[in-house]
């Protein structure tokens, strides 16, 4: 993924040209180029500043990320989300031009990895030409890939769809191509219609993963109808149901030898949590029969996984009609669909790299456990970190059956007089603050409000609370903030605003 985030070295230019020539010799040339590529494909250049996952009041150094974008209906620019993540400035550059124009981010969805931009300047916007979305796409479709090189000109390559992949987020194509693709967001066309945007390119396999036009179109519609609704999710953890012994145990063969998938678990707080339970066998989803691997025959995209019936064909707020087998009995259930945000998970990934909420009063850094916090400890984090935290990350659904629960940790202690004796503690789980049970950081802030400050912390596995001197606290906080140069000892996200 990273290869898209850095500017391509000069040498790669020649390499790409050779590949391009090779492509035109071997693969059949594709006609019907989008007629006005110059006006409809742009480079997106974003300056971004990420947060330090361990010391969340710190920013990392700003860096520049680049991708390509395509002008879609309404002269909006479609690109990938991770290029504009934590952006401080987004600019677009048109083909054969060095001029950069500022653009605003209308909406960005990190689950889908799509972002919709709009040039700030109306005149500049008027010069752009929209490309229509392709409605369908199947295995073996021939496609054209257009990439913009360093000089702002286009290189064209041919490709072939070798796989349609339904992910919980959207519909993807795997495209085999001889064109070397350096930037994410590089557009893929079928005829003169947009088939999708490249998410990543595997140099060894010479293949791209492409986010389909069907998913992009749906995203654009949702982005232009605020508040942004996002993708629908059921909150279902399922597995193929292949094992004959297991099928016998569940009575699944009564419904047909090759039918049905197994519900392993449901995500707390999701629609599936109320409607389905472990050991249910899903036979039909919204009227489509599922085989034992979870595939169905889609009228537009062929044989794909049934997750497309949720994320692709439904919106949050709708309900899916599901036929299941429960304890040998055939039942129908309605599964309410909603958007499941990463931050609702017990251990969020925080792929967005959003600033983590924290409390650093008394030098005790309290925060919620997230994937990006764990990864920030480097390649060997699994073996180096407290195995309990790693376990909670790998097995998040096993700990809590309640929505809204997170794991609050005492990440580390910034040594000061007030926390003497506690300096060695790190990555311990916080179970209570001031005697009040804690299930997320919001409850910590609420406890502090009610009690007028941080007085004691209970840790999992410790029969004794860590006690802090409340009279000394204001002076200690001033000292800690000054010594460790922390602009604010608390950061709480504004929960009134969804973004």
């Amino acid at each position, binding site marked *: 993924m990273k290869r898209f985030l850095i500017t391509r070295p000069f040498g790669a230019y020649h390499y790409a040209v050779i590949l391009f020539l090779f492509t035109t010799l071997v693969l059949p040339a594709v006609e019907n180029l989008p007629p006005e590529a110059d006006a409809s494909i742009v480079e997106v250049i974003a300056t971004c500043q990420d947060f330090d996952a361990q010391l969340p009041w710190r920013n990392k150094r700003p860096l520049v990320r680049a991708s390509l974008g395509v002008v879609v209906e309404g002269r909006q620019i479609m690109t990938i989300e991770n290029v504009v993540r934590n952006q401080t400035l987004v600019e677009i550059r048109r083909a054969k031009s060095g001029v950069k124009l500022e653009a605003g981010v209308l909406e960005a969805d990190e689950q889908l990895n799509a972002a919709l931009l709009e040039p700030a300047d109306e005149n500049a916007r008027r010069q752009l030409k929209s490309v229509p979305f392709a409605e369908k796409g199947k295995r073996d479709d021939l496609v054209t890939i257009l990439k913009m090189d360093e000089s702002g000109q286009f290189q064209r390559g041919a490709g072939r769809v070798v796989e349609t992949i339904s992910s919980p987020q959207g519909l993807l194509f795997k495209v085999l191509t001889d064109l070397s693709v350096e930037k994410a967001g590089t557009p893929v066309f079928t005829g003169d219609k947009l088939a999708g945007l490249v998410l990543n390119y595997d140099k060894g396999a010479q293949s791209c993963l492409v986010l389909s036009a069907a998913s992009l179109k749906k995203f654009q519609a949702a982005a232009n109808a605020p508040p942004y609704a996002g993708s629908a999710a059921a909150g279902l953890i399922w597995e193929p149901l292949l094992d004959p012994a297991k099928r016998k145990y569940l009575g699944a063969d009564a419904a047909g030898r090759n039918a049905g998938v197994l519900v392993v678990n449901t995500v707390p707080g999701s629609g599936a949590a109320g409607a389905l339970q472990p*050991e249910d066998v899903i036979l039909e989803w919204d009227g489509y029969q599922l085989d034992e691997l979870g595939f169905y025959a889609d009228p537009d995209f062929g044989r794909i996984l049934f997750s497309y019936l949720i994320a692709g064909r439904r919106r949050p707020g709708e309900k899916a009609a599901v036929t299941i087998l429960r304890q040998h009995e055939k039942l129908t259930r309605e599964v309410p669909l909603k958007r499941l945000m990463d931050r609702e998970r017990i251990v969020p990934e925080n792929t967005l790299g959003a600033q983590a909420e924290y409390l650093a009063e008394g030098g005790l850094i309290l925060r919620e456990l997230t994937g990006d916090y764990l990864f920030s400890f480097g390649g060997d984090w699994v073996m180096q970190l407290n195995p309990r935290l790693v376990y909670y990350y790998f097995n998040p659904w*096993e700990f809590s059956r309640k929505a809204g629960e997170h794991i609050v940790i005492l990440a580390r202690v910034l040594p000061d007089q007030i926390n003497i004796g506690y300096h060695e503690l790190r990555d311990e789980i916080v179970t209570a603050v001031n005697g009040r049970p804690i299930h997320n950081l919001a409850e910590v802030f609420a406890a502090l409000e009610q009690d007028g400050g941080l007085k004691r912390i209970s840790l999992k596995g410790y029969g004794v609370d860590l006690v802090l001197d409340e009279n000394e606290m204001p002076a200690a906080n001033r000292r800690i903030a000054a010594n460790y140069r922390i602009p604010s000892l608390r950061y709480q996200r504004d929960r009134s605003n969804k973004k």
Partner: protein
Amino acid sequence: MKKLSKSILHSAFSILPFFLLGPLASDKALAAVDFQASIVKIYVTIQREDYKMPWQAEAPHPGNGSGFIIQKRRMLTNAHVVSDARFIEIQREGDPRRYQAQVLFIGHDCDLAVLTVPDPSFFEGTKPLPLGASLPKLNDEVVALGYPIGGERISLTRGVVSRLDYTLYTHSGVDAHLAMQVDAAINPGNSGGPVLYQNTVVGVAFQGIAGAQSLGYAIPLPVIQHFLKDIEDGSYDGYPELGLTTLDTRNPALRRSLSLAETDGGVVVTRIDPFENAIGKLAEGDVLLAIDDFPIADDGTIVFNGQTVEFNELIERKQYGESVRLKILRHGEKKNFSLPLLKCSDPYLYRHEYNIRPEYFICGGLVFTPLNMNWLAQTGKELADPARQHLLYYSQYVKIDGFHTNQNQLVLLGERLAHRVNTYDSKFLYKTVAEINGLPIRQMSDLPRAFAAPSNNLHVIRFNETADCLVLEAREAQAADREIRRKYNIPGAYYLSGEAGP
């Protein structure tokens, strides 16, 4: 905890430049030590168990270490020199004959073993090395004797006592005792050899740190004496434990909340091990003020023989059956009582095991094994795999996070011997078993009874880590096992509680 290199017995052979073969006879400090009468070389053939395929053992390999003669026709050496030994021979310095030896006592936690040779002629002309009266001090000159790599004959290295401190004994992997750090070269093969101060034994060379220089460790006199006293009754019991985790009380706010007086030190009990001596006697939140009348400072130390040491060191010197006097503060009230130190058995002490045949049980080609330190050690870096990482977590947190209340032992699906009856079961590998056919699995020995009760010809196995269950067809699995045992060359269907299955 520092990572210490495993035994110094089996590492690769390479000539080390600081190796010393001294002009032995002219050494004044050693004039009284007769090497030929006291120092022995130990030849062993080691065969480790294979915890992944527990019906067979790994390939045997040779090793050698050092030892020395002590009273009552015995030799002292390291436990790791003779652990998992299939055959042991002893050779006296300067005598070409090798004598077959046997282990009388072995203490894996303190890495010491006592051997003897049944042939009485071996002891003709031998002279036991005397144990020292007390530990040498820092900078006292000591010599290490033994048979390290680099040659065949005895080697002598000289140095000073560099440090006396608590150190992890890597042989068991969990026990920490006092260790004597010396700067005399100690190398692979030195293990079990004596460290002498003024011609008396003050240590037994046993481990080093990979990559460190002039840094070797010896088991010091108090640990040797503890071991020799322990075995006087004819068996080795080990070290009693209080089973406490404590937090120091240096924080003034914590001290006030515990109602500690200015003059009191003390450590506060944060956790009590459910399987050790303090359970039911002490409570979380109790402050330990004094131990055997030695006041405990707010950082957990006591002043003992003029030295500041951790309060645990007093327990170290005790044998099972003795008591310890504790002074505690509970709910603001001071209390004195005596706590007997009994032998406890903790099934969740993840300590390296030796000379123990691993247990297993096979059904439908699925191999069930107990989770233990040896299994974890053989898994090594693969524990970083998300499908296995939980086992690392359990090994450290099973008692802290309360998993021990449901089980006496963690039983895991360790291996799948591929066969058509278990084609789809790989996803359950490394999960720990909660119940089989509705019967809770608290330990390995529950498996035969649980597998004897399938319902509708189906075995249903449930795990602690997933809501998904594994289903086996019972008759088919039984038939498959005969084929699997033949194909995979497995002598028996199980080894449980010392009994091998057919």
